[in-house]
Structures are given as structure tokens and as C-alpha cells.
């Protein structure tokens, strides 16, 4: 479970998150929706511990992330998979090396076992033949798939975070990425947060939905609850997307 309690984040004088409360139950996918610049990605940064709130706290499985020291934070992140907007693959490494990276850093597995695991993960995302290619040789959709495989490299990723995983992709590729995200959730029973502004993709992957506007949470709930919200911003958002 991930819980944000009265979290406020500010960059200088500008408040990006204003005392927000959010709870993502274990094994569920929470989709965070809102306009660009509304603070969606900031929530992910708080959960990752790369950004510290001015006030409030972030709990992951009842552990206060803000109270972890550097070592504790590094250990905590080892149980977390993050898929960045453009994939953030290491461009000096091949696809296989990108996926193997976590295993090299945190395990003492022999090379043949690492390769076996890398091939399994790449097969899972349908990219085993690209194992020796460089990220620059891949399309946007393929890079996101590799990023998902890399995020799953930890034996048991308890939390998966996705930052706009389908932005800039065509509808077919977007759907295949969403299907893949669903498969990952089923396989690992992980707790997921997905940040997006695409409602179609949100419905494909989400169990719960949160709308952020002007640094505040304006609604949280299931698809039905969101669709029946009386908030004019949400209704406009839903109608524009449809």
C-alpha cells in the first residue's frame, strides 16, 4: 500500500502539491489524471523519495519514506520499478545490458543466469530479438517495452510507477503498452501508480482514478464514481476526451 498524508510540495514560492491525501491499496492500479503541469509527476517523485515534501509524509507499506537515510532509500528503491516518460534507457548500453543492469548491481548471479533472466523478461515484453540493439535503434514503443522489462528485473517489484507511459505513441502501440502493464500487474501483484492525461489508456489500466487540479486532489474513486462526479472540471475533461 502507498499512502500520501497531507503532502505539500513547493518549488520556491510556487506550491505544486497542496496538502494532498491519497491511498493506493496493495495490488491495485491508481491512475493520476490532470492537466500538464498540475503536479502529477511530482507525486511520483515523492513516492520515489527523489523529492521531499515541505510537509506531510509518504508511506509505502507503512514505512515513512521521508525518514529513510540514503542507504535505506537505496534499499527501498530496489523493490520499486519505474518507467519514465521516454524510457530513460542508458543509451551507452544495449537493450540486454539495460535489462541486466539491476541484476549486475544487486545480485551475484553468474553471467549465464543473468542472460537467462534478461531473455525471459525481453520475451515477456516481446523484444527478445532486439537484445543486442542500442536504444537509439528502437522505436518509441519498443523503448517503453524495454523500460518495462528493466523495471521488472527486480525479482519482486512491490511497486511499479509509470510516468506518462503512452505519451507520443500511436493508438495501436499505446494499447499494446497498456496490455503489457496489465500483464505485469497480474504477474507480480504489484501496487501501481500511473500518471497520464490520456483517458482511454487510463481506463485500460486503472482500478482507481484521481484527478489533480491546481495542486489539489479534486476527486478520487472508481471509474463509475469519477464518471458521476459533479465537478465541472472533471466533466469537461471527460467530455473533451470522448
Amino acid at each position, binding site marked *: 500500500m502507498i499512502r500520501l498524508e497531507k503532502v505539500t510540495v513547493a518549488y520556491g514560492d510556487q506550491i505544486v502539491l497542496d496538502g494532498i491525501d491519497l491511498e493506493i491499496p496493495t495490488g491495485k492500479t491508481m491512475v493520476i489524471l490532470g492537466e500538464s503541469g498540475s503536479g502529477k509527476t511530482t507525486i511520483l517523485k515523492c513516492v*520515489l523519495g*527523489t523529492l521531499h515534501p515541505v510537509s506531510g509524509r509518504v508511506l509505502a507499506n507503512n514505512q515513512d519514506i521521508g525518514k529513510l537515510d*540514503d542507504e535505506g532509500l*537505496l*534499499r527501498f*528503491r*530496489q523493490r*520499486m520499478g*519505474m518507467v*519514465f*516518460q*521516454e524510457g*530513460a*534507457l*542508458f*543509451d551507452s548500453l544495449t537493450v540486454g545490458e539495460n535489462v541486466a*543492469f*539491476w541484476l549486475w*548491481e*544487486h545480485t551475484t548471479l553468474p553471467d549465464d543466469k543473468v542472460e537467462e533472466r534478461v531473455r525471459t523478461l525481453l520475451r515477456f515484453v516481446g523484444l527478445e530479438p532486439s537484445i543486442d540493439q542500442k536504444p537509439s535503434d528502437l522505436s518509441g514503443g519498443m523503448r517503453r517495452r524495454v523500460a518495462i522489462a528493466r523495471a521488472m528485473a527486480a525479482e519482486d517489484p512491490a511497486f511499479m510507477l509509470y510516468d506518462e507511459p503512452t505519451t507520443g505513441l500511436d493508438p495501436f502501440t499505446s494499447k499494446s503498452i497498456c496490455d503489457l502493464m496489465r500483464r505485469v500487474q497480474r504477474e507480480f501483484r504489484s501496487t501501481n501508480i500511473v500518471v497520464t492525461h490520456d483517458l482511454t489508456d487510463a481506463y485500460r489500466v486503472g482500478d482507481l482514478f484521481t484527478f489533480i487540479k491546481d495542486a489539489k486532489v479534486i476527486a478520487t474513486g472508481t471509474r463509475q464514481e469519477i464518471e458521476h462526479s459533479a465537478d465541472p472540471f472533471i466533466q469537461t475533461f471527460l467530455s473533451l476526451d470522448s
Partner: protein
Amino acid sequence: MPFRNILLFMTGFLLTIQDFTTMVGMSFRYLFVHFRLRESLLEMDRLGVGSIPIVFLANLFAGLDMALQFSVVMAPYGASNLLGRVVATSIVRDMGPVLASLVMSARVTAGITSELGMMATTQQIEALLVMGVDPVDRLIAPKILAGMVMLPVLSVVGDLLGILAGLMVAELGAHVPAPLYWSGVRSALTLPNLLNGVLKPFVFGFILVAVGCFYGLRTTGGAQGVGRATTKAVVYAAIWILVANFLISKFLIDVWGWKL
């Protein structure tokens, strides 16, 4: 208002110093507690071996030019017999290390800053953190070690090349016999001079890599930001190398006296 600006500038300066020393401190800590042999050797190959042609070329022409200039100045005083000693002293104590460092800073500092800058702007540094890997451990510490090991090696070999280039000018241009030139060179290779020739590139190697890493990690603002950070890093590295050169010279002269 001016007081407020001065205060803001001083605060920013002190915070920069704090961030820099933290990065350097963490790097040295990782070198002792979590040494990465493979990455360090790879960096030594990239930073050092890749710089051989430019460092050697720079030293070769510096040696040629220095011998030429000194021979012109010394000949009227009948002091051409000291040419080997003067050329070797200048190259080993000062010109060799400084020239190698400045040439390397153009290549290595710029390369490191742009590489790390691109990684920072494309979230690759953040990805490392998220994967439980400290970028200072994985990226910075091996580079700093490589700079501190490879620059002295390159500088010493570059010094030798500069001295040999001086011999060519001495023999062919100034008509100083080779044995006389070599005896001058030998008399210049004293302990204080050799210590100068090794200590300086050791410190300069640290400066040019650490400055490059520092500005690379702090890069923001896309491709334009990478360009800005790279320019800044190369300029600061060059300035700090020249400042450090003077300070080390002063320190060693205070320790050893005015011996050559």
C-alpha cells in the same frame, strides 16, 4: 538591493562549494568501500588512452618551440650548453603537466560534462537512483580515479616526448651536441623537479574530471543546457588548473627552496 544581491551570490557560491565537496567526498568514500575495477579500467581507457594523440602532439610542438625560443635567447650569452637543462626543467616542472591538462580538459572535461548532462536531461541519472544505484558510485568515482591515474602517466610520457623534440632543435637548429644536451637534461631531473612533474598532473587530473562531473550532474534545460554546462565546465577546469599550478609551485618551492 545591492546588499541583497551580494548576499544571494555568496549563498549560491557557498552552496555550490558544499555540493562540490559532498560529491568529491562521496566519490573518495566509494573508491574505498565499493571499488569498481571494471568501470575504473574502462574509464582509464576512455579518458587516458583516447587522449594519447592530442597530448603527445601538444607536448611535441611545445618542446620544439621551447627549445627554439630558448636557443635564440641563450645563444648571444654563450649559454647554449644549458639548453637541455632549461628545456627539461621547464617541461617537467610546468609546461608538460599544464599543457597536458589543458589539452585534456578540452577533450575530457567537455566529454564528461556533455555525457552526464545528456544523462541528466533524459532522466537516466534519475533512473539510476530509482534502481538503487548512486550515480556518484557508478559514474563519478571511477572517472575521478581514472583522471588521477592517467594524467600523470600521460604527462610523464608527454614530457619525455617534449624533451626529445627539444633535442631535435638543439642538434639541428642551435648546433648543441646531443651529449651536452642530454647531460643538461640529466642534471634537471632532480627529485624536486620530478615530484613537481608527477604531483601536478595528479591534482590536475582530479580537477578536470571532478569539475566536468559536477557541472554534468547539475545540467538542466535540454540540449541548450548541455551546451551551457559544457562551456562552463571547460572554462572553470582550465582556470582551476592554472590556479592549482601556481599554488603547487609555490608550495613546492617553499618546501624545497629554489633548487633546480
